[in-house]
């Protein structure tokens, strides 16, 4: 101990005349730029997927019904629920912000909240108005900081050069590892389920992929969709358009994961996993059309033990999947496996039997307890522009059928396709393959009213078409199919489309007549729309049935105005394979309910 030790402490007194360092007004001090304060939610952006709820380790978030707030409605891709946060639970970790699929959930830098009533510490950000709603500062997920991978695992595909001269299937299917990685991206929110017409348990089967439990996955698939193998390849996958992951990244490849499950389970085991039919009931049902809708209903009803006969005008079952989709997208084998599986449930098939000619509706009505009309959309629409009656102006649907039927078509030197949908792409790409095979080079032009951003076709189809050297010219309004003096078709004359939709988003093209082009083509193929051929019903029945704007009027279960007749598939709700499956299911349920009702009455 020294004198220094006695005196040195007095240095402390130097602070006496310094200004104190206290914050003058601590009540209004702003927190830092990144501060994690109370939540904000852009409810318009939010889709109510509940991922925030799932990740919250405090159980602080509830997904609650929000009613009467503008912009929030339960609709495909938006559950209509919004997160409500309990500040008696929250720990401000911001995992909910980090995981938010739309970046709608953020945090303000407000931090002061004092209440006398402990029940008040709960609110729905963005809905219940708070003073920090418009605070700009606060925690937002930093760029690149993601808790789940935004990018889809690439599907192995044949390169354009490899695939363009054959009808070999393009897509290879995921490996187990790829599928696991892709399945891993799913946040299991289930927003997709309601969008899927047949409500496949998507999150559940994706988690089966994650777990590698493919048999469980297959069971889940076939419980809701007997066309799972086919849907795994060509489903219109509306689910993916609403996928929560699609808001900030690629949607989950739900279709490919479905396909992956069906590929991983050996076909021999399918039947055992799915389970066979119940004992026979003696009830008889006739189904017209062996497409997805008809066969789905057949599958359901046959499994219930009913006697099901399917009448198909063509030589093979599968309907549009068999005759409308090119083989490079859906090989015959897949269809056959699917059909065989359904038939194995005890369905009686009548091929090459056209109702209306080979057998009459009245006959079916008499012989069966119920009849299901699942006739699809087999009449192609035409533009009926001048010259459209030329013999080399085709309907896409007819051409496709001919190609898939194995007819040896001689491909034209050049061809113009009218239409921007998937059928247009299909025919363009099919004919391109034929051209490549027969002539070695491709000359297909595809024109459509819409601009590319609004094509009805799947973006992947467009991308692949371009890869396959299809010349896509968008925003062209067809005016005339031009023939030369010899009557030989030379091409399509078109005008530039200025705009295609009106302000109500209804189709109303306007043209720039000065911008006129002639697209050369020996063939012109129209792929603008399809309709049902209902002539098989006969005049009397047509007259008897109720119609709704050109389509058969059916109730939610596919029941027509006639008690014995149901309708399903594209002819009532289409065209879409998975909707067809869905209507098949609901018709089967409805028929079953009718049987039960009758039983109850008889008893």
């Amino acid at each position, binding site marked *: 101990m020294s004198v220094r*030790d006695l005196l040195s402490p007095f240095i402390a007194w130097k602070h006496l005349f310094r200004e104190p360092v206290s914050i003058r007004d601590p009540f209004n001090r702003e927190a830092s730029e990144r501060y994690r304060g109370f939540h904000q939610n852009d409810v318009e952006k939010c889709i109510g997927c509940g991922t925030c709820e799932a990740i919250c380790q405090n159980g602080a978030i509830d997904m609650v019904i929000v009613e009467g707030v503008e912009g929030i409605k339960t609709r495909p891709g938006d559950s209509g629920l919004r997160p409500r946060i309990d500040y008696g639970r929250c720990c401000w970790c911001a995992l909910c912000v980090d995981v938010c699929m739309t970046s709608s959930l953020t945090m303000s830098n407000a931090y002061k909240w004092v209440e006398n009533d402990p029940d008040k510490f709960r609110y729905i950000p963005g809905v219940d108005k708070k003073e920090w709603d418009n605070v700009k500062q606060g925690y937002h997920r930093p760029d690149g900081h*993601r808790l789940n991978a935004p990018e889809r695992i690439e599907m192995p595909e044949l390169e354009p050069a490899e695939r363009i001269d054959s009808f070999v299937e393009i897509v290879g299917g995921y490996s187990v590892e790829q599928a696991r990685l892709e399945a891993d991206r799913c946040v299991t929110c289930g927003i997709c389920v309601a969008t899927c017409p047949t409500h496949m348990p998507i999150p559940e089967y994706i988690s089966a992929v994650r777990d590698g439990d493919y048999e469980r996955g297959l069971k889940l698939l076939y419980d809701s969709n007997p066309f799972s193998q086919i849907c795994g390849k060509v489903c219109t996958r509306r689910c993916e358009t609403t996928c929560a992951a699609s808001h900030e990244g690629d949607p989950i490849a739900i279709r490919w994961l479905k396909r992956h499950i069906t590929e991983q389970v050996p076909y021999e085991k399918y039947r055992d996993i799915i389970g066979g039919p119940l004992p026979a009931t003696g009830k008889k049902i006739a189904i017209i059309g062996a497409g997805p809708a008809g066969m789905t209903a057949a599958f359901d009803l046959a499994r219930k033990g009913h006697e099901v006969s399917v009448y198909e005008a063509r030589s093979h079952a599968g309907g549009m999947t068999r005759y409308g989709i090119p083989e490079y997208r859906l090989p015959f084998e897949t269809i056959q496996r699917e059909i065989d599986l359904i038939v194995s449930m005890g369905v009686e098939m009548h091929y090459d039997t056209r109702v209306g000619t080979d057998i009459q509706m009245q006959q079916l009505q008499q012989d069966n307890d119920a009849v299901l009309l699942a006739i699809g959309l087999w009449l192609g629409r035409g533009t009926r522009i001048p010259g459209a009656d030329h013999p080399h102006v085709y309907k896409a649907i007819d051409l496709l059928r001919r190609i898939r039927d194995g007819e040896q078509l001689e491909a034209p030197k050049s061809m113009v396709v009218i239409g921007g949908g998937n059928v247009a792409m299909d025919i363009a790409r099919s004919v391109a393959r034929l051209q490549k095979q027969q002539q070695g080079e491709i000359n297909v032009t595809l024109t459509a009213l819409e601009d590319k951003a609004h094509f009805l076709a799947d973006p992947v189809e467009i991308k692949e078409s371009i890869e396959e050297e299809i010349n896509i010219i968008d925003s062209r309004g067809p005016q005339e199919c031009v023939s030369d003096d010899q009557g030989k078709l030379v091409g399509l004359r078109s005008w530039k489309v200025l705009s295609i939709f009106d302000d109500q988003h209804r189709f109303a093209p306007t043209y720039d007549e000065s911008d006129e082009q002639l697209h050369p083509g020996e063939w012109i193929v129209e792929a603008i729309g399809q309709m049902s051929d209902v002539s098989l019903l006969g005049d009397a029945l047509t007259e008897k049935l109720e119609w709704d704007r050109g389509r058969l009027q059916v109730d939610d279960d596919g029941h027509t105005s006639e008690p014995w007749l149901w309708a399903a598939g594209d002819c009532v709700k289409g065209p879409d394979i998975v909707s067809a499956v869905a209507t098949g299911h609901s018709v089967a349920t409805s028929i079953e309910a009718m049987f039960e009702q009758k039983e109850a009455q008889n008893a």
Partner: protein
Amino acid sequence: MADAEFGKADRSQYPHRRPDGSLDIDLTSGKYLKLWQGPNHPGITGNMSVELTVCGDEVVEGKTHVGYLHRGFEKLMERRTFIQCFPIVCRICVPEPDFNEYCYAAAVEELAGLEIPEKAKWIRALILEMGRINSYLMYLGGQAGAFGQGVIGQWTTYARDLMLDRFEELTGARIYHMFILPGGVRDDLPEGFDERMEQTLQEVERTLDDVYDTMFRNAVFKKRAVGLGYVDPALVDEYGITGPVARGAGVARDVRKDQPYLVYDQLDFEPVTGRESDVYARADVRRRDLLMSVDLIRQILSKMPHKGEVMATLPNVLHWKIPRGETYIRGECSRGEYGYYLVTDGSGYPRRVNVRGPSYTHAMALLEKLIVNVNISDVAGLMVSLHTYPPEIER
């Protein structure tokens, strides 16, 4: 049946007779006084208590009682997914939460086979050193306060608060930063962070100068602290002593040097040691260690890569599963070796997490040993000098 078996039925041995039978205190004799320090007691570090048996002014026996802050973290983590554990681990040690975040993240990364980006390592080291400074500043205030010199606590808490401001702008929170998550760190340094950090460091250094003059060169402080709470270097291994307590006894063990993690192998420093192994020596070790952290932060900020990712790509955290395995991750926190023992079983949840904080041994076995024959007035000073944080003991 279970209840009966696990209920502590047999209390007939109380007060406990040690196996060697050295101390048999008869409270009814009137010779001894039972005195509880804590949990509601300003001289206790945090919410814990010491049950003192005193004879006159002298402690003849001291038993630590913990569990007032027990929240069952290790159990709670077993029912939280790997990412959900991330916000909760920092709560295990309130004054220096980042170590939990780091150890947990590193353990998960090791078992999951994740490699984190280079820049994340630097930022992590930066945060850990900032946390160390905070913890030491708090300690210095506490140590002086325990001997009745309140003004030191005022200064150091102010300096700590400035550091909390840096924390806030970097991590978005003051106390529980929740910034180091498995895979990296949340975000890059904000704009202009270096300059503001430098200002803060200078303020910390100025404060430390004042503290040195008023606390370390203080006759009365020396009178109280020198010679108090001597820890025999031979006890260091026996009692599992780590950190400044061990270094104060001259045992130069510093995990940062012995088993370098993050970027410590690229930094220039030497473990700080003392000799006398008393309260004063430990305080001095911590003071110098604090200054070393200031230096380390400067090194980190100057050597840190300017560009680069701060976060590795994680699998989807909502169903992140980690294969079966076990590991132990340790780091040098301000109080000694901090470690996480993580066992996974291939599911999406940890099988078992064991948090090994330095206070566990320091505040229990060691304190109970050191406290014997200490004046009541020195109990607080002694406890503080072990720098224990109760929440990490009972978790």
